[in-house]
């Protein structure tokens, strides 16, 4: 049971207040029609799913009802930072 810091509420809250929103920083292709099927398929269906540092979106569903980003180590579950959507993470790279 993670304890997640919501950058909007500025508080730590129980995991059960949040829902997972998938990988963060997936920028939508500017002109999707120009992509090949393969490129479009990669965009739609393929995710990094790394072992280690992962940037992901979370939704504070029973709190402020806003999205934010989380940098989490998928190996240890440790949340290294949370930040607003549109901002860049401070922590990047592959851990352990």
């Amino acid at each position, binding site marked *: 049971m993670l304890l997640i810091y919501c950058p*909007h*509420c*500025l508080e730590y*809250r129980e995991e*059960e207040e949040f829902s997972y929103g998938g990988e963060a920083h997936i920028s939508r292709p500017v002109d999707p029609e120009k992509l090949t099927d393969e490129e479009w398929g990669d965009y739609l269906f393929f995710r990094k799913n790394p072992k280690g540092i992962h940037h992901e979106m979370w939704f504070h569903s*029973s709190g402020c009802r806003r999205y934010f980003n989380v940098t989490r180590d998928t190996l240890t579950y440790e949340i290294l930072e949370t930040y607003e959507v549109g901002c860049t993470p401070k922590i990047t790279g592959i851990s352990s």
Partner: protein
Amino acid sequence: MSIADPTTSARRSPLTHWHKNNRAIFTMIGSSSVVESYEPKDGSIDEQRQAKELAICDLSTLPRTGFKGQGASMWLGEQGLHLPSSSNSAVIQSSGSLIAKLSDQEALILSDIFALSNDVGNLVNRSTSDHRELTQQTYILPRGDSHCWFTVTGSKASEMFSKICAVDLRTHKFLLGSVAQTSLARVSSVIIRHDFGDTPCFYVLSDISSAEFLWDCLLDAMYEYNGVNIGINALQSLIDKH
């Protein structure tokens, strides 16, 4: 049928029928029909004493509203209201109403329990008549209908909450004017610490469609501490003394 019978007024709490089945006596607070007290089933229940220990009261018909948007704080300020400086906190207005800041772009305004303040009505009227919501990015939210409004009062309230809420609501941690947007028994809720006199009190605003479910959950959780449902008279008497 007394004049305060809730079924003669259009705005009815989702718990109206529950109250009637539990021998509620209704009264008008401003233009709202509210439970004044309950006729005791056996022996007499001292609702005022209960309010100090552990009790729940339904205020769902009392005035409240909300505003949201980038211009909301500024617009509310222009209306002469005093907003808390930080999110998730609440301040009492000189009129008696309470403003809770839910985010830098969202506020919730609640009437006092005597409905003496006209803040809510005034704000609703101004926002819809002058269409400020569009130019100033201020949008009214129908908080009077989307959320029910309960108070949980008494010295054992925090302990009771810990059975159904993951936020630490103990009075030395969740101070006066604190606001938590969280889930109570898995129902999305806003909880505001707003004491009456020296009695700890928590306003609970939750999804109105689950009001009856949450009411039952709260009563069930309160049972262990002998908590009961009370009317608004007992709440008002907590303030009278001061």
